Each structure stands twice: as C-alpha cells, then as structure tokens.
C-alpha cells in the first residue's frame, strides 16, 4: 500500500512537471505567435526575429520534460529493474521536489510570453533593437531556471537520501 502510493506520487509529480510546464509553454508560444503573425503579415522579412521571441516561452516545456524524466529515473521507476520500495511520504517528497518546476514553469511561461509579445512590438517598429526585446523576455526565464535548479537539486538530494 505504502509503495503503491509512493509510486503514484512520483508519477503524479513527473506528470505535473511535464504537463503544467508544457501547458504554460503552449499558451505562451501561442500568445507570442499571434502577435508575431500580425507583424509578419505586414513585413514577412521579420519572420526570423519574431520567431526567436516566440521560441522563448517554449523553454519551460522542455525543462518540465527534463524534470519529469529525472524524477522517473532518479526514483528508479523508469530504467531501473522495477524493484523500488518507498514509504508513501518518500513518494510525496519526490512530488514536492517537482512542484517548483510545475508551478513556476506554468506561470513563468505565460508571463514571459507577455513580455515577448510586447517585444514583438519593438521588432515591428525598430527591428534593429530586437536584441533588447529578447533581453526583456529572457529575464523572465531566470525564474524558470531557478525553479529548474531547485527541482534538480531536491531530486538529487532525495536520490542520495533514499538510496542509502
């Protein structure tokens, strides 16, 4: 019973990390994509510049995927011989480790998208300043990166603790 519940929590954590971050990235890239399409309809030569702005909020989805795989791999649910034994609270600990990436991934993608969509306006009016537009949006990504770091560190710590 304890082991089953633990594995449920581990899987739930992985699914939320990949799922929520992915949802955030999907919403984010779509938001910027709509703004970008408006610019490209006026001037197709700006495609490359606005594409980069659109890709920026895609990062969170990739980070979420990474955390999901690390969770499954560190806990031994994936890739091991399937012979894992956890107490339910240990599974819950893995779940908690996934939370930063899941929550921050979701919100930072959407907020980064808003900054990037505003940056699309910069590209429309002053194409030479697109580097600044990228910087504004990339700053938001810092917090997704911090969340990624904390999730990785927590997972790494858990692996060390429970393996012993």
């Amino acid at each position, binding site marked *: 019973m304890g082991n089953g519940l633990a594995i449920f929590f581990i899987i739930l954590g992985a699914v939320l990390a990949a799922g929520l971050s992915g949802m955030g990235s999907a919403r984010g890239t779509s938001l910027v994509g709509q703004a970008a399409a408006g610019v490209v309809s006026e001037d197709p030569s700006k495609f490359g*510049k606005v594409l*980069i702005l659109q890709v920026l909020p895609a990062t969170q989805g990739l980070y979420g995927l990474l955390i999901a795989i690390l969770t499954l791999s560190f806990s031994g649910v994936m890739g091991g011989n399937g012979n894992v034994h956890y107490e339910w609270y240990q599974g819950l600990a893995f779940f908690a480790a996934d939370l930063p990436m899941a929550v921050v991934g979701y919100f930072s993608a959407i907020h980064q998208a808003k900054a990037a969509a505003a940056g699309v306006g910069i590209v429309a009016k002053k*194409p030479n300043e697109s580097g600044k537009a990228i910087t504004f949006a990339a700053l938001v*990504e810092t917090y997704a*990166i911090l969340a990624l770091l904390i999730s990785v560190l927590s997972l790494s710590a858990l692996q060390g603790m429970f393996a012993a």
Partner: protein
Amino acid sequence: MAKCKVKAVRLVSPLSQKAEVLNFLQAKGTMEIRQETALSPPPTDPDAERATLKEALGAIEKATAELDARAPEKKGLLSMLEPREEVEETAFFGEKARAEAALETAKTLLELVKQEADLGVERTRLQTKLDLLEPWKTVSPVTRVSPRVSAVTGLIRRNVTREEILSAVARDYPEIEAVEVELYDLPSDITDPVAGPTILTAYCLTDDAEEVETSLKNFGFVNAPGTDAGPYAEQAAAVEAALAENEAQKEKLGDEILSFASARADLRFAADYYTALIGQVDASSLLGQTERVFVVTGFAEGKDAEKLKKQAEKRFDAAVELTDPGPDDDPPVILKNGFFSAPLQNITGMYSLPSKTDIDPTSFMSFFYYLFFGMMLSDAGYGLVIALATGGVLLFKKNLEPKMKNTMKMYLFCGLSTVFWGAMYGSWFGDAPAVIAREFFHAPAGFNPMPPIWTDAVTDTMNVLIMCFILGLAHLFWGVCMKGYTDLKNGRKLDAVFDTIPTFVTVIGIAPIFFGLFVQDHIPENYPALGRFLYNIFMAVHTSLSQVNMYILIAGLALVICTAGRHSKGIVGKVGGGLYEVYSLFSGYLGDVLSYARLLALGMATGVIGQVMNMLGTLPKNPVIKIPAFILVFIAGHVANLAINLIGAYVHTNRLQYVEFFSKFYEGGGRAFVPFEATTKYYRFKEEQ
C-alpha cells in the same frame, strides 16, 4: 571570411544610354542604388509609369493564374529545385515586342474570362426563371370568367386545403360571402405533401377582387407568371433552350481560353519583363540627372565594384568612380564566408547584420551550430536521410540557384552532425535495429546490433546532461573570446583583457561546485569504452579543479570587482560596478548554462518518440500482416517524428546562438545590402565570362 569591403560607386553616363545602363546594372544585380543628393532627380513622373506597368503586370499574372487553374501544369516533386531559365541581358530587354504581345494576349484572355463569368450570371437568371415556371407547366390558369366574376390564379408555397384558404379570407373580410377556391391536382414530381406548393384559382365578385387578393397574399399567395409570352410549357421550353445555348457558349469560351495555354511561356516572360521594368522605375527615381547626363550613386562589394567599373566603361560612354565610404555614408553590410559557414549567413542575417564595430559572427558560430543541431535531432537514421537527400541534390543538380544551394549545404552539414550524435547515442530510427533484430530475426531480448558509441541518452540522462552543460560552457566561453576579439579589432586592448580573463577565472572557479550537483559518483556498468574515457577525463578535471576551485573563485571575484567597474567614475562607482558584475555573472551564467539542457531534452524527445513509433509498429502479432504493418507504421511514424523534431532542432539551435552566444559580444544593427536587381520568377541573367 567576414564582412566584405564595400565601395561607394558613382556612375556618370550620357542620357541617351540611360535605358541600356539601367538594364546592365539590373542584370548584374551587384550594386545597391541610393538616392543621389547633389543633382535633381529625372523630370519624369515615376508614379504614373509605375501604375501603368503594375496594371500590365497584374493583367499578366491574373491571366497566368487563370490558365494554371484550368490547365495545371504537371510539376515533379523536385520542381522547386529547378533553377530559373538563364537568359542574356540584351536578349531579355530586346524582346519588348514579345512582352507587349503577351500583354495583349493576357487582356484578350481576361476579356474571354469576363464573358464567361457574364454567361454564368445569365445562366443563374435563366435557371431561376425556369424554377419559377416549373410548377405551372401542367396548368393553364383562368384569369377572368365574366364581367361580374373575377378569377385569380396563383401559388402558395406550402400544402394548404380549400377550407384553410376560405377561412383565412373570411377572417380578414367577414362581409365577403361569394368566394370559391379551386385547387389543382399537381403531379407528384412537382408538389410535396408538406412543402407544397399548392396551385389554386380563387373566384369572387369583381367588386371584391381586390380585397380577396389582399387576403390571399397575407396567406402567402403569389400570382401566376404572365402568359403574354405564350403558354407556360412553351415558355419553359424556350428558357431550357436558352440554357442549352448558354451552356454551349460557355464550353466554347472555355475551349478558347484553354487554347491560350500555349502562350504560357510568353506570359511568363512578360511577367518577368514588366517586373524588371517596375524595378527600373523605382531605381530611376533615385538617380540624379542634368540636361545631358545622369548619375547613379550607391554601393557595391569591392570586387564586384571593380568588375562593374570595367564592364560599364567598356560598354558605355560612362565614367565610374569608386571610393571608400566616408564617415557620413551608411554603407550596407555584405557577408562572405567559406564553404562551411556561408550557409549560415542567413541565420546571422535573421538576427541582425553586424554593425560597423561588430565582427561577422557567422564563421565563429558555424561549428557549434552544426554540433548543437545534430545533438538536438540526435538520430543517426534521420541524419542519414537528411544528409543523403541534400547531398544527392548537391551532387546531381549542378546548376542550383545559390540560395537553394546554401540551404542544401546547411542541411547536409546538420545531417552529418546528426548522424554523429545519433551514433554516439545509439539511436538509429529510434531503437529500430534492436526492435527489428528481436521481432524479425529472433534475436535474444536485450541484443542491440548498433549499440551506442558513447551512451544511451534516454537512460543515462545525468551524464548526457553534464555533457550538455560542458558544451554550453565552451560555447559561452567562445562567445567571451569573441568579445575580446571584437575589443582588439576596435583597438581596445585593455578591454580585451578585462572583458574576458576575470569572467573565465570566476566561472571556472564556480563551475565544479555547480557540476558537482549533477555528477553521479559512479557510472553505469555497461558504459561503453569511449563513454568511460570521456567520463574519466571529466572526473579527473573535475576533482583536480574541485581541490583548488575555492582559490580560483576568490581570485576571479577579486578580478571582477577590481576591473568590471573601470568605466564608472569615482571609487564607489567602480566598486559598485564590480559588485553588480559579480551578481550578473552568477545569475547570467547559471541561467545560460542551464539553458543548454535543451540539447538533452530535445534529443531525448526525438529518441523516445522514435521508440514509441517502433513499438506501435510491432504491436500486430499476426505473422501475415506483421511485416507490412511494421513498414507502414515505421515510415509514417518516423516521417512525422522527423518533421516535428527538425523544426524544434532548427529553432532551438538558433535560440542558443542568438540568446546565449550573440549576447556575449554581438550588437548587430547593420544595414542589409539591397542590390538593384530583377526580382524575376522564371528567368535569371547569365553571368558574362
């Protein structure tokens, strides 16, 4: 291998040769024309000329589209690779008559199309008329029976009974008593038990006729069509004949339009001819002109400029002056790179071209570009497909257009890099070799004919992740080196040292702590030899660095604090600047390095989806359909996976270059070179020997 030397060009020639000179310049397509400021522009009205030409071009394009829609040309799968037809400049511009004839053809064709459309409108009108006559074909209505009694015939568009009609009239006009209604029996192909229509004749006293008709109309009654043109059956027959005639005419017109298909080549020529002329009108408004001469000013790449001068002075009574651009000029940026990097110039251009003080980053990013692309696509099978396809095109299509050639080359290199990483990770169409060996050749479980040279990215996540971070750090350091190089180029020797060394020392000091968070103490037992070798090297460097990294870090921080604020005034500003740099160094590099995790994430996504496709393919256990089912799922699944991940790899490789690499040293903001050339679709000008 960098930014080209650009010359300012000034060409003066007699007015009598203006047209020829413009033809020449446009066919060469190597010079950018800028507004001549010293002399007044030609006294012509460019707007009117442009409008006339655009109208002609519009007609030709519309006619071509009309022909293409009716008689589509068969195009091969590789038709987009076909180059435009080569043509001599003099031959092209000498065929004015051909273009004008084609314009007339286009106008005739469009007139026929218009007639055809009119026939369509007429047809709709006739059809409606016929529909209206349809219920009346079998009826010959009575209108007036005697001076005192009137009869009115018409139709109600639903099925009603005599009682319903009579009570409706009685409700509206209770005082009218003498009303009678006669319903006609209609054949079942005309009427419907619910939807009708009902055809009827109402009889009443002539004095009441108006009221009865009003009441019936409230009920949905419509008068019968007039019989002046003869009985209904005859009228319907006449309309049907007109319809048939209409149809025949339309067919005739359609054939006539199709007979113009042979003029397609002329139409295409004319489209390009008028496009070129429009370009000349635009350019011509930038020229300067006096009573006898005209002046073209602009820029060209150094060697092109020399060539242009030689040829123009030989062919025309022209004088061409080449000078270095002055400080007030705004020369365009032209990039030139070798075989390996030239395909990526577009990628640089998509971000921003180098400014006056920038270096051309293309050749410095090409190695990492191909490397990262391969790492993100990371399937040797996909890489082979791309490399073979693009390599084949490059080998067998000698006369590709330069743009297409560069695209092919870029994907060739990307494909080769993908093969490399796919082999490192042991991914050949996902895990296809192992799956095929197991399912179709009864190999034992766990047998893999193509094992990874390094390690399996899907299971050995941590070590691959570390590799990504190391490559990322190398990429970032390379960017910092570029910063130093840019400083040197601009004569800032001190900056070249202070912008680079402190960063290197600090990041090297902190890196082992960071990597230590990810490093696993042991490596998997089944680790291949090369992987073990790489791992050991890294671990050796890591441990030896870890022992001294505190000192390196402290030295680095001291260097940063002492040097980063050097441009600020006062001791507070200098130290403050240094401290701020420490903060931005830590937060910046942390984010930058972690960002390279996408190399692993995207690579793993390709591998995992590929494995899922193979698994789906082996689901059917029936021995008869097993092989065909596997082949089908294999092809469809891997094509889809390749398509998705190709886009992902391209976009995210660009991102790593733009956001992580360029931000270290590159400003951008250079003006693109827009040569005066003909933006033709079907022809290109032959290069003179």
